């Protein structure tokens, strides 16, 4: 922590502007819902959903790295947190989403609309 007493204000404001911009873009997309992105399908869901998910991960990156100051921690503290989280979360999400898709394919034919 050689630079512990420096001020990181500039970086903080830049990240704020970035996060605000990304949120604005997300909300604009969410309200307009362009048909070419919303009604088409790409890798299992609409391209619009992929845009939302990627922008969310970008936001998460900036919050964790800049605000939670992961960028200033030692490499292995960062890795012990991030790698563990990324592995467990993707594992759980993958299993549960596959299971959800299976439930739908099994149960939906039984529902009469």
């Amino acid at each position: 922590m050689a630079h512990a007493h420096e001020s990181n204000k500039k970086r903080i404001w830049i990240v704020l502007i970035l996060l605000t911009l990304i949120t604005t873009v997300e909300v604009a997309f969410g309200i307009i819902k362009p048909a070419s992105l919303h009604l088409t399908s790409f890798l299992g869901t609409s391209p619009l959903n992929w845009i939302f998910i990627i922008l969310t991960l970008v936001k998460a990156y900036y919050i964790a790295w800049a605000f939670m100051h992961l960028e200033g921690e030692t490499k292995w503290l960062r890795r012990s947190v991030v790698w563990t989280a990324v592995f467990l979360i993707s594992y759980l999400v993958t299993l549960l989403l596959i299971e959800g898709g299976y439930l739908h394919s099994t149960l939906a034919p039984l529902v009469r609309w």
Partner: protein
Amino acid sequence: MEANIAIPSDSKQTWNGGGNKPFGASYGKMMMWFFILSDAITFTGFLAAYGLTRFKFIDSWPIADEVFTHFPGLHGVHAPMYYVALMTFILIISSVTMVLAVDAGHQKKQNKVAWYLFATIIFGIIFVGSQAWEWKNFISGSYGAVKTTDGKVLQFVKDGHQIALSDFVVGGRTDGRVQHTRLNGLWFEEEGTISNYSIAQIKAAYKSNTDVQIRSELIDPATKQKVILSRAEGFAQLTKTDFVVEGANLQANEYGNTIFANLFFFITGFHGFHVFSGIIINIIIFFNVVLGIYERRGHYEMVEKVGLYWHFVDLVWVFVFTFFYLV
């Protein structure tokens, strides 16, 4: 045994790890990180359960734009997303004031730390208040719907736009049914609020208003909009209804699947509880800063640690926002 203990406990400072700094971080900070990690997995459990349920009911899940449409001061205006976007922004701002407090702590500026923490607390309270307002709207509902005996929610539309029951049913409840309370019936039994209209009234109003149509829960995959039934189909569905739903609770809601409201309450409630506890912790730390405890200690690391928690709450909201309101 002693040879197996990595950290010498002779100094008896077990709470802060005996002054050892694994990964160059103090014991407290590292443990905060690992707590956040485990908490992140808990939230993942909730959000992944939401994903599973949504995939299970992918052809009939409520559309968020049609559920969250309120903005303070704009009555009757269809304002999807604006309010949650504002809430997201408020939480991001509170994260910024928190990180500014941490930054001021590094420079040992006691006054600045206190003021930034104070701002963080205020923004946090605004956020929790906004969430309470969101819940209030969600619980009281704005349109009302009917539910069939096989558990499907039917909503009413006119010219493709959803309308409230009060928009086409005339007058008040006509069947003379009153709410059963302990005072007017069996003293040991009571029931919840009864609906404003009876099913028979709604059926009659549907028959006489030929421009009212029924919207089913089913989503048309081509347009990703809810399917609107023809007048005849709608009437066939309407004959199967047995009760009126107004608003939302854990048993039924006017938006669609029961579990949609349940997940909404659990996930945003669990997050809101985190924000609430974050505010309490921030208030405690705020007083410690004002009293000069960290000034005497020589460092403001405690502000950094609660800051980590606060940013984590913001981080979770970013995901809740995406998966509940956008996707």
